[in-house]
């Protein structure tokens, strides 16, 4: 057992950024013999994009479609495990990886951990760190001996290195398999109208702490009087209390141009952080002083969001 396998991910003609981060994590952690697998139809640009200094090979597997197919990815990974006997398999922790990696891990009896944000490998022993209990604790994991270990890595942790035509490219035939879950089409998110989270410089965001639909209005008004754009966490959009266009996070919008982000009653889940943790000035307001959001904030206010809102209104009369 030796070497590192990484499966690249792409969608709608674009390589997933987290793939480059995953490759970078392997290079920075000095994992042995890094092989990056690219699966799909028009894969030339992806092959070039993953040739980062430090990799050994790109394994190109040409198939009849560019779209993700869980069975294809699972069968291919299984085939490569059995031909290369890697000690480490690294995948980006994305929706597609969630959609096949665990099936292979269980079936092939791999060591396995997801959403890992730190790992090390020494003398073949892998250690990984992930979050637990709503991110209130970190968990150090070990793995069963003498088995390949597969880790899915949290996005936005490793800063990707640039490709420079490193490594060699080899071609492998795709496995024979039958597709049981077939791609049909993509549906683009609904138009956001005049709500512009990506463009906003100042966002006031509310989470489940708002407690009730009838409380939402006062925060719309507050955001207005502060000159902020109102954002929200996912449960608020799921409940239909605010339109999806206001949702910040992995499955919503990214606060790309935000300079000041005030998070009220938001715990700071990984998926919410994905859309805002890069913001320079984050102010977190939460009644729970152990909430994970405080670990990412510049300023923390341990308080009831309604009381702070009330006082803020006094400071910023309309």
């Amino acid at each position, binding site marked *: 057992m030796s070497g590192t396998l990484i499966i690249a991910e792409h*969608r709608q003609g674009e390589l997933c950024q987290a793939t480059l981060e995953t490759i970078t994590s392997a290079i920075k952690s000095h994992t042995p013999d890094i092989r990056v697998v690219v699966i799909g139809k028009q894969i030339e640009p992806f092959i070039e994009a993953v040739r980062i200094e430090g990799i050994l090979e790109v394994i190109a597997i040409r198939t009849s479609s560019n779209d993700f197919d*869980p069975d294809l990815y699972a069968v291919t990974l299984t085939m490569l495990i059995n031909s290369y006997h890697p000690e480490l398999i690294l995948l980006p922790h*994305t*929706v597609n990886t*969630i*959609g*096949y990696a*665990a*099936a*292979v*891990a*269980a*079936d092939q009896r791999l060591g*396995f951990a*997801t959403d890992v944000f730190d790992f090390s490998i020494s003398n073949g022993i892998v*250690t990984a760190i992930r*979050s*637990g*209990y709503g*991110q209130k*604790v*970190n968990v*150090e*994991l070990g*793995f*069963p001996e003498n088995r390949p270990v597969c880790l899915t890595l949290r996005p936005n942790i490793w800063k990707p290195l640039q490709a420079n035509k490193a490594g060699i490219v080899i071609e492998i035939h795709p496995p024979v398999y039958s597709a*049981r*879950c077939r791609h*049909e089409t*993509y*549906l683009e*998110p609904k138009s956001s109208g005049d709500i512009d989270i990506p463009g906003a410089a*100042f966002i006031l965001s509310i989470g489940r702490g708002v407690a009730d639909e009838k409380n939402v209005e006062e925060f719309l008004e507050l955001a207005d009087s502060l000159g902020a754009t109102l954002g929200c966490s996912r449960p608020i*959009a*799921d409940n239909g209390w605010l339109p999806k266009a206001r*949702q910040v996070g*992995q*499955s*919503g919008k*990214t606060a790309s141009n935000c300079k*000041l982000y005030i998070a009220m009653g938001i715990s700071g889940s990984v998926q919410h952080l994905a859309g805002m943790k890069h913001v320079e*000035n984050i*102010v*977190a307001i939460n009644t*729970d002083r*152990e909430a994970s959001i*405080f*670990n*990412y904030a*510049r300023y*923390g*206010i341990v*308080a*009831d969001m309604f009381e*702070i809102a009330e*006082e*803020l209104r*006094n*400071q*910023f009369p309309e």
Partner: protein
Amino acid sequence: MKILVPIKQVVTLDEDFEFTPDNRDVDHDFHIYDLNEWDDYSLEEALLIKESNDSPIEIIVCTVGNEYADESLRKCLAKGADRAIRVWSNELKNTDSIGIARIIAHIARREEPQLILTGVQSSDFAHSTTGVATAGILGWPYAAVVNRFEPDHDFTKASILRELEGGLEEAMNIDLPAVITIQVGINKPRYASLRGIKQAQSIPIEEATPDSLGMIDSEIGESGSASIIKKMFIPEKLSTAIIIEGTPAQQASKLAKIINDFKGV
């Protein structure tokens, strides 16, 4: 026809929690239990399928856990699940999500459901592993992070939508039986009626063990798992937040200053 809905009783931590002496968990005295948020949606989806189908459907909820987990199973029975199975024995203590999937797979082999609906993840550990791993063990088709599920009339295929990054959705078509992991927001979970709560009290919860399910040693507990918890610790603060103290009025006036500084007022 049967639908199997594996559920998890999740833990939130009480304030000022402490670790166990071996540092491998948080002391259970600080555990507060609840049904996993995602499982509320997978159960609701099963109930909706049952209600919109002419032929009878039996909904079976199952979980792995000690008697504390009965509370969450009862909640599901109160909402309309037909049967509940709880699997436990002391050898299951250090079971991870892959190990749990091995147990669910055994239940599935015994019950032969046409569909398994799990949540995308649990709110406490967010592994996003159990459902897809169960499919891998059973050799079944699977789809993860699904926010629409429409089976065809004879339940051999289903049209689904998967929710991808950035709000993009992917329409797919999947063969059944399958394991589907359900995303929050797919439906509006109901509340249990008083009558439902009352009726649920009289439905017995079946207690099973790895042994009674016919599991072999290499599938059970740590042997069937893919990871071992070495220790837990408090995360290092990534940015040391400046905590703004004082009364709400004082806190708000400091916040107002931050806002005004930002605006260059």
